[in-house]
């Protein structure tokens, strides 16, 4: 067993990373080279043409812009509103039954997305918000909120209440003590929560597919999926789109690794 351990770890690394490498590898090959047999293990004629084509001929920039606007404002809005709720739960929510709260915060997580998407589409259609960035932005904000409130609550709870009370005894208002004392202390947690919401919404596909299907509003995952349909065997471009969609998020995720477990389980495991 002890001797097997390094071998098993290396095996796990290969199985995990080889497919990712293959994506990057394919994205840097010419269309001709993609089809050579046996496949080349690294690009023989390294080219960025696939990436250039994506942005010049396939409007990937537009999808990227939509994603940035929708996800950016949804994350900002849910953080602004959800942090208040998190603060409220951390400071005044002690008398509420923990069990009950757990249920109400986690329950939305258990609703299958497909049970919400049909009515959501019909409602947004009535409001004229289908194929509008605003529509998807509101949906994402709502989805993020319980998560943000719950995460922020756990971060607020880690800040001793005495600090705040001391400031208030010295004559600061609750608002001032919140702004000057609590907020700076909680900002790393807030950043982690923001990145989490960002990962979830930026990667989201199902709602985006149904609520935004035109280039004016469609997000990067929807644009990428449409691209797969159009390019069929242009594997190089497909791979390049995959790299563009994945890279920023992988970097962000590695930044918040320390909080990853807490985020994934909504605080159930720390």
């Amino acid at each position, binding site marked *: 067993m002890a001797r097997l351990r390094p071998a098993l770890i290396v095996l*796990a690394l290969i199985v*995990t*990373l080889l*497919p*990712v490498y*293959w*994506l990057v590898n394919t994205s840097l090959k010419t269309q001709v080279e993609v*089809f050579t*047999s*046996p*496949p080349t293990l690294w690009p023989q004629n390294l080219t960025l043409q696939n990436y250039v084509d994506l942005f010049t001929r396939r409007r990937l920039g537009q999808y990227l812009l939509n994603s940035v606007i929708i996800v950016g404002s949804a994350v900002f809005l849910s953080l602004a*509103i959800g942090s*208040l*709720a998190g603060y*409220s*739960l951390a400071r*005044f929510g002690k008398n509420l039954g923990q069990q009950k709260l757990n249920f109400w915060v986690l329950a939305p*997580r*258990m*609703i*299958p*997305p*497909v*049970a*919400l*998407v*049909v009515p959501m*589409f*019909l*409602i947004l259609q009535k409001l004229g918000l289908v194929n509008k960035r605003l529509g998807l932005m*509101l949906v994402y*904000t*709502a989805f993020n909120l*319980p998560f943000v409130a719950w995460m922020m609550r756990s971060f607020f709870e880690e800040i001793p209440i005495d600090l705040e009370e001391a400031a208030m005894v010295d004559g600061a208002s*609750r608002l001032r003590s919140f702004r000057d004392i609590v907020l700076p202390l909680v900002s790393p947690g807030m950043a982690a929560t923001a990145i989490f919401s960002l990962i979830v919404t*930026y*990667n989201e*596909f*199902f709602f985006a597919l*149904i609520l935004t299907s035109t280039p004016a509003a469609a997000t990067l995952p929807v644009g*990428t*999926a449409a691209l*797969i349909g159009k390019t069929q*065997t242009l*594997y190089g471009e*497909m791979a390049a789109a*995959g790299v563009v*969609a994945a890279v920023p*998020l*992988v970097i962000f*995720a*590695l930044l918040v*690794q320390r909080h*990853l*477990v807490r985020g*994934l*389980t909504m605080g*159930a*495991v*720390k």
Partner: protein
Amino acid sequence: MRNRLLYWALLAPTALFALAMTVLPLVYSLRASLQEFRLGRPPAFVGLQNFQALLHDSSFHSSLGTTLIYTIFATGIEFLLGLGLALLLKEEFPFLKVIRSSLIIPMVIAPIVVGIIWRLLYSADVGLLSFAVQALTGKSFSVLSDTALALPALILVDIWEWTPFMFLILLAGIQSLPQEPFEAARVDGASPWNIFVNLTLPMLRPVIAVAVLIRALDAFTVFDQVFVLTQGGPGTATEVATLMIYKTAFRFSQFGYGAAMAVAVLVLVACFSAAVTRAFKGSV
């Protein structure tokens, strides 16, 4: 008293927003499920007719079966592999941090991109895996258009993507266990296997429950990778429930029937969650 007011004032926007986006659609969904609701025609109330039709809709049943197989195998194998990895990496090892970071990459890649990655491996013309199998066996290999292999192939994709999730959570769980019982057991001369079965596993129960529940719920409503890789085919071999509802509502514009299916899935998921929560009572 002022605190109480502040408590609710700060909480209200989140609560209202979240309710508006969950309870409201659910109620709307329930109503739509009782209607004959097609695009371009005014919805008409038909009572439980949609649900009666569901009871006799064999393609819906087989889609639920496919989803169940997918969920059980994906979640089960991910749990075993994740637990194995967590045990493998719980003690010091050179470059442990880098290894850990590398192992969680699949989980944070967008499912759509995961679909692309596996297209590059599975496709019959350029796929790396197809090439490898052909080189080894001499037979051409086209997994995604094979009725028997398409579903296992999709499950494999799920395992690749989500084993890191199980690994990460179980590792955190194992590392947060108190050390004393383990030391005592070692002093008493218990074998590693004994310690694992009688100490580690029981103490890990709450963490296992959370991890399995979250993963199973997500697997049961899988959509993205299936959409990119097979669109439910060949035939209906990989038509999971969410995909079928998507097609019914948005390709065939049968909103009422689609809503009824969604309600059925919701009820199943709720029963499942309740069962798991009860099975792990006191630990969730």
